[in-house]
C-alpha cells in the first residue's frame, strides 16, 4: 500500500502537475498555431513575463493574499494575466501584424517570433537580472497537504492544487467559448480561410486580438503557478518551451483538447520513464520463488536519458497518428 | 474492344459515409466514356481510387487487364494513366509553362546525377520539352500568361492548365473531372475538338466526368450514370436523356438541358 502511494506521488500526481503546466502553455501555442498559423516561440518567455508581472504586483500589494487565505501571487494572478494579455496584443501590433499584412509565409513568422523571443530574453534579464526569486512572500506560507494513506503520505502542495483547478477551469471555459460562442466559431473560421471569413463579415483583427488575449492570459497563469510551486527564474520557460511544443503538436495542432492530452502525455511519460518499478514489485517479494531476485533498479531508462523519452513517445505517437492525437490541422 | 479500366465491385467508406457502394463499371479502350450523376454520387471518389489517390475499402480495379488496386498515383502514371482534378491542383509557385514542362515522364534530368554532370543531354531534352509546352500553350490559349505564376491564374485558366497537362503527357487513359466547369464556352468548343482529335488520332482513351450535357452529348459514347455510389444505367446519350429515372435523379424533372 505504501508503495502504491509512492507510485501515486511520484507518477500520478507529479505527472499531473507537470502535465498541467505543459497543457496551459500548449493551449496558447496551439491556438496561435491554429489561427495565426505559426509556432510562437516566445510563449515560454510570455509565461516568465506573466510570473514577473505577478512578482511586481506582489511587491505592490503584499497583503492581498492574507485577506482571502490564498497565496498573494495567486490572488493577484488575474491582473498579471490581464497585463500579459495586453503585452501579447502589443507584441502582435508591433511585430506580427505588419508581417501578416505583408502576407508572409508562416515560417517567416516563426523566425520573427524567434527574434522576439531573443529580445524578450534580453529584456527580462536586463530588468530582472539572472537570479532566482520566490513568489511566496513572508505573509504567506506554502501549505503542504500530507494525507496519510497506508503508511505513507500522499503529498500535494497548495500551488499544485491551485494549478489543477486553474487548468480545469481554463479548459472547460475555453471549450465552451470555442464551441458555443460566436467569437469562438469565428476564430475557427479565420483559421480555416481568412479571406472567406472577412467576406462573411468577421474582423480578422478582432479575432487575432482575442487569440492573443487568451494565449497571453493562459501563459501568465501557467508561468505564475509554476513559479509559485517551484521558483521564478528568467530561463524558467525557455526550458519548457520544447515540451510545450511537443505537447501541442502531438495533441494535434489547433486542438485545445489535444494540447491538454499532449501536455498530460508528455508529463506522464517524463515521470513514468524513470520510475523505479522495483518499488511496486517489492511487496510481491514473499510471493515469488527465491531464485527470482528483484533488481534494485528497474526503470525504462536511466535518468540521464529521461529527456529523450518524451520525444521517443512523440515520434511513436506521430507514426501511429500522423497529425496528432486529436487530428490536428495541416498547415500547407 | 478490350476494357482498359475495369472497376469490379468497388466500395469506399469514409467513416460512416458510403461514398461508393459496390460499384462495377468498365471503360473500353479507344472510347470517350462519360460519367454523369447527381452531386455527391461518388464520381470523384471513384476517380480518386482509379487514379491511386487512396485505395478502395473493398473491390478490385484493373488497368489494361492488370490488377492495380492500391497502387500509388505515380505508379499508375507510369502505367499510362493521367487524371485531372475537379478542384484545380496547380503548382501555384511555378510558372504556367513549368507546370507543363514538369509533366513528361522519363526526363533524364530528373536524376540528380544527370542534372549535375550530364548537362548536354539534359539541355537538349529541355529544349524539346519547352517547345512542346509552348505548342500546348497555344492550343489552350495561355501563351500570354505562360510566365505567370500558376497560382495567379484565374479559375478557368487553371482548368485549362489541367487539360494542357494531358496534351503534354500523351498517356493511354485520361480521367477528366469536370474540365468544363468555369471554362468559357467558345474556348470549350475548341477544347472538345482537341479531345476528340487526341482520341481519334493518338488513340487516347478518355473517361470524363461532366455536368455540361452539351459537352457530354457531343463527346461521349457511351455514358455511365452514377447515383448514390453505384451505376444506375449505361448507354448512349440519346437513351439516357430520355430515361425517366435519370431525369428524376439528375435533370430534376425539367427537360434536359441542352435539348433545345
Amino acid at each position, binding site marked *: 500500500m505504501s508503495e502504491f502511494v509512492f507510485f501515486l506521488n511520484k507518477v500520478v500526481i507529479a505527472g499531473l502537475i507537470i502535465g498541467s503546466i505543459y497543457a496551459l502553455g500548449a493551449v496558447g501555442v496551439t491556438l496561435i498555431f491554429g489561427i495565426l498559423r505559426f509556432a510562437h516561440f516566445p510563449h515560454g518567455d510570455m509565461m516568465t513575463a506573466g510570473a514577473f508581472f505577478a512578482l511586481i504586483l506582489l511587491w505592490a500589494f503584499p497583503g492581498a493574499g492574507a485577506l482571502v487565505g490564498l497565496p498573494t501571487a495567486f490572488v493577484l494572478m488575474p491582473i498579471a494575466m490581464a497585463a500579459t494579455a495586453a503585452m501579447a496584443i502589443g507584441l502582435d501590433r508591433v511585430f506580427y501584424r505588419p508581417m501578416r499584412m505583408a502576407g508572409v509565409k508562416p515560417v517567416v513568422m516563426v523566425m520573427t517570433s524567434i527574434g522576439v523571443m531573443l529580445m524578450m530574453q534580453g529584456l527580462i534579464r536586463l530588468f530582472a537580472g539572472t537570479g532566482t526569486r520566490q513568489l511566496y512572500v513572508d505573509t504567506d506560507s506554502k501549505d503542504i497537504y500530507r494525507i496519510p494513506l497506508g503508511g505513507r503520505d500522499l503529498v500535494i502542495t497548495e500551488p499544485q492544487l491551485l494549478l489543477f483547478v486553474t487548468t480545469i477551469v481554463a479548459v472547460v471555459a475555453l471549450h465552451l467559448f470555442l464551441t458555443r460562442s460566436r467569437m469562438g466559431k469565428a476564430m475557427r473560421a479565420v483559421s480555416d*480561410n481568412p479571406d472567406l471569413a*472577412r467576406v462573411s463579415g468577421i474582423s480578422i483583427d478582432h479575432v487575432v486580438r482575442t487569440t492573443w488575449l487568451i494565449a497571453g492570459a493562459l501563459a501568465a497563469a501557467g508561468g505564475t503557478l509554476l513559479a509559485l510551486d517551484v521558483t521564478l527564474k528568467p530561463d524558467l520557460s525557455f526550458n519548457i518551451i520544447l515540451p510545450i511544443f511537443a505537447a501541442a503538436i502531438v495533441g494535434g495542432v489547433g486542438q485545445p483538447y489535444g494540447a491538454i492530452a499532449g501536455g498530460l502525455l508528455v508529463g506522464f511519460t517524463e515521470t513514468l520513464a524513470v520510475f523505479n518499478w522495483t518499488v511496486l514489485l517489492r511487496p510481491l517479494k514473499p510471493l515469488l520463488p527465491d531464485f527470482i531476485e528483484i533488481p534494485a533498479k528497474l526503470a525504462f531508462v536511466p535518468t540521464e536519458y529521461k529527456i529523450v523519452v518524451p520525444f521517443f513517445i512523440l515520434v511513436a505517437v506521430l507514426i501511429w497518428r500522423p497529425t496528432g492525437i486529436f487530428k490536428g490541422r495541416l498547415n500547407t | 474492344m478490350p476494357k482498359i479500366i475495369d472497376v469490379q465491385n468497388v466500395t469506399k467508406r469514409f467513416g460512416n459515409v458510403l461514398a461508393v457502394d459496390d460499384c462495377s463499371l468498365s471503360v473500353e479502350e479507344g472510347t470517350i466514356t462519360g460519367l454523369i450523376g447527381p452531386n455527391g454520387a461518388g464520381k470523384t471518389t471513384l476517380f480518386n481510387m482509379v487514379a491511386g489517390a487512396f485505395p478502395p475499402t473493398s473491390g478490385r480495379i484493373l488497368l489494361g487487364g492488370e490488377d492495380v488496386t492500391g497502387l500509388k498515383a505515380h505508379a499508375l502514371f507510369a502505367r499510362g494513366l493521367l487524371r485531372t482534378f475537379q478542384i484545380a491542383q496547380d503548382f501555384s509557385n511555378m510558372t504556367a509553362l513549368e507546370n507543363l514542362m514538369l509533366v513528361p515522364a522519363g526526363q533524364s534530368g530528373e536524376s540528380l546525377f544527370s542534372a549535375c554532370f550530364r548537362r548536354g543531354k539534359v539541355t537538349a531534352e529541355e529544349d524539346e520539352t519547352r517547345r512542346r509546352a509552348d505548342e500546348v500553350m497555344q492550343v489552350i490559349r495561355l501563351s500570354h500568361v505562360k510566365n505567370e505564376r500558376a497560382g495567379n*491564374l484565374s*479559375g478557368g*485558366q487553371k482548368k485549362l492548365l489541367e487539360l494542357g497537362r494531358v496534351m503534354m503527357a500523351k498517356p493511354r487513359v485520361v480521367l477528366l473531372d469536370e474540365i468544363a466547369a*468555369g471554362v468559357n464556352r467558345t474556348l470549350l468548343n475548341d477544347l472538345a475538338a482537341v479531345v476528340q482529335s487526341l482520341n481519334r488520332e493518338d488513340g487516347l482513351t478518355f473517361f470524363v466526368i461532366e455536368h455540361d450535357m452539351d459537352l457530354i452529348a*457531343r463527346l461521349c459514347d457511351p455514358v455511365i450514370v452514377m447515383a448514390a455510389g453505384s451505376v444506375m444505367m449505361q448507354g448512349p446519350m440519346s437513351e439516357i436523356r430520355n430515361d425517366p429515372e435519370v431525369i428524376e435523379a439528375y435533370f430534376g424533372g425539367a427537360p434536359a438541358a441542352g435539348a433545345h
Partner: protein
Amino acid sequence: MALLEMTGIHAGYGGANILNGVSIAIDADQIGVIVGPNGAGKSTTLKALFGLLTVSEGSTVFDGRDITNTAPERLVEQGLSFVPQEFNVFPTMSVEENLEMGAYVRRDSYRHMIDQVYGFFPPLKEKRRQPAGELSGGQRQMVAIGRALMTEPRLLLLDEPTAGLSPRYMGEIFDRIVAINAAGVGILMVEQNARQALGLAHRGFVLAGGHNRFTGTGAELLADPEVARSFLGGGADAHD
C-alpha cells in the same frame, strides 16, 4: 436609382493592373450578369467591388454611398454578400457551422434561414454535421451559396454559382435567383453558362482583357452575333 454603380474601375494584384476601367451598374430589382473569356477579369471585378483588393482608380457606389476600398467585413454589414469562385467554404467546419458563419453579422435569429437553405439543398441537411472539406465539389458549391444567403442581403454577388452543379441544381439555382430577385434583392453574377444566365439577366456585361466590351440587356447580348461567336460558344454551331 442604381443600387450599384461601379465606374471606371482600375485595380490589380500588386503588379500591373488587371482591370483597366470596368463600369457596371444595376438597379435594386435587377439581375446583372458578367460574361467573358477566362482571365478577362470577371472575378477580379467582383473582388475589387468587395474590398478584397485595392482599387487604384474609379469608384463604387452602393445605395448612394461610396464604398470604394471599404473592408469586406464592413460591406457585409451594409447588406452585400459574396460567393467567391474558389476557396469558398470553411473546410474543417461542419456544413451547419459554415452557414452560421454566413450569419456572423446578424444579431437576430437566423434559424429560419438555415432551414430555408436546407429546404433548398436537401443534400446539405443530411450532411450538416460533416466538415465542408469532405463534401463533393457540387455539395461544396451548395454550401457556398447557402452561406451567402444567410444574411438576407440586399445585393448578392455570385462568382460562377453553377460551376460543378448538376443540371438539376443548376436549373434550381437559376429559378431561385429569379425568385430572390423578385423579392427585391439585386443580383450580380459571373457565369460561364452564359446562355441560361443572360436569358434571365436584366443587364449583361461582356468583359475582355479588363475592359467592358459590350453592355446591354441580356436579350440584346444574346442576340448579338459577335457576342455569341466570341464569348458564348458560337451562335448557330452550338446546335450541331
